[in-house]
């Protein structure tokens, strides 16, 4: 019950922080400029409203990297201890990763269209992240293709660990190779990220991580409840 309360509190915190971040992004964080435009003979700075996608797109992407790490971690723990609970944890973490990955891909695509006037560019970050999306989907395809529980868990654990290697590669690649994709955190493109913009980003990031954690806990509770039902049914039949 206490665990349940923690999950609900984390969910509420995540909802509150992401809502606050949304309001902060549009009402408090100053707009960045994107060139200039001539209106009625006057040259005025063109506000880059598309940059506002940053405050949700990046936290969702960072959350996908972090949750994917847990897929690999629980996979490794399963291989080491052969405890089925780690396989369940890895599977649920992969589900949450898939949700974040899809949201990152779509919000990133909308940002790409708004800023670069194209839906897709085969540049290093987008390409490696697209590969990561395919790997997460492949994780579930692999699971569904194996019937034997033990083999399924083992193969999925190994695949999860190997697939995760793409996450740090995708994160770092824009730092290693110059590309059109901005490097905001710790990069040259992040010179505008300070003061209210930085605070807004941190609030959104913490909120998104809280949401990710709460969703993971809710799904785990669902799985454990299913297992208890199966056990109770077996006791009734036995």
């Amino acid at each position: 019950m206490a665990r349940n309360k923690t999950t609900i509190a984390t969910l509420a915190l995540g909802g509150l922080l992401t809502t606050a971040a949304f309001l902060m992004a549009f009402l408090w964080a100053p707009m960045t400029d994107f060139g200039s435009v001539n209106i009625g003979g006057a040259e005025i700075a063109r506000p880059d409203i598309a940059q506002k996608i940053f405050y949700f797109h990046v936290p969702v992407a960072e959350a996908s990297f972090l949750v994917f790490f847990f897929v690999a971690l629980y996979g490794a723990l399963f291989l080491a201890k052969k405890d089925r609970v780690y396989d369940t944890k890895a599977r649920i973490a992969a589900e949450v990763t898939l949700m974040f990955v899809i949201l990152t891909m779509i919000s990133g695509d909308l940002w790409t269209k708004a800023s670069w006037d194209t839906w897709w560019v085969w540049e290093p970050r987008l390409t490696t992240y697209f590969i990561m999306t395919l790997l997460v989907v492949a994780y579930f395809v692999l699971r569904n293709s194996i019937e034997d529980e033990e083999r399924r868990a083992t193969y999925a654990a190994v695949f999860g660990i190997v697939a995760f290697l793409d996450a740090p590669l995708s994160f770092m690649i824009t730092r290693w190779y110059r590309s059109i994709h901005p490097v905001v955190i710790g990069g040259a493109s992040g010179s505008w990220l300070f003061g209210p913009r930085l605070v807004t980003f941190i609030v959104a990031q913490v909120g998104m991580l809280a949401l990710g954690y709460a969703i993971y806990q809710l799904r785990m509770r669902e799985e454990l409840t299913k297992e208890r039902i199966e056990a109770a049914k077996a006791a009734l039949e036995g």
Partner: protein
Amino acid sequence: MDNLEVYRVVLNGAPYVIAAYALIWATLAVFVGLTFRRLTRLEQELAVVEDAVERRQKA
């Protein structure tokens, strides 16, 4: 230049921004909502099954 044209030139990315925020929020809300609904149903089922187990053990 009318107002609509000004918005189109100055805020040309606005529909994409609105779509991105709406999509992220809607997806998270639907995911959480569906999980809660399934969980509530499962917990009700668990209570019924565990009650049946308990009654059988007492009998």
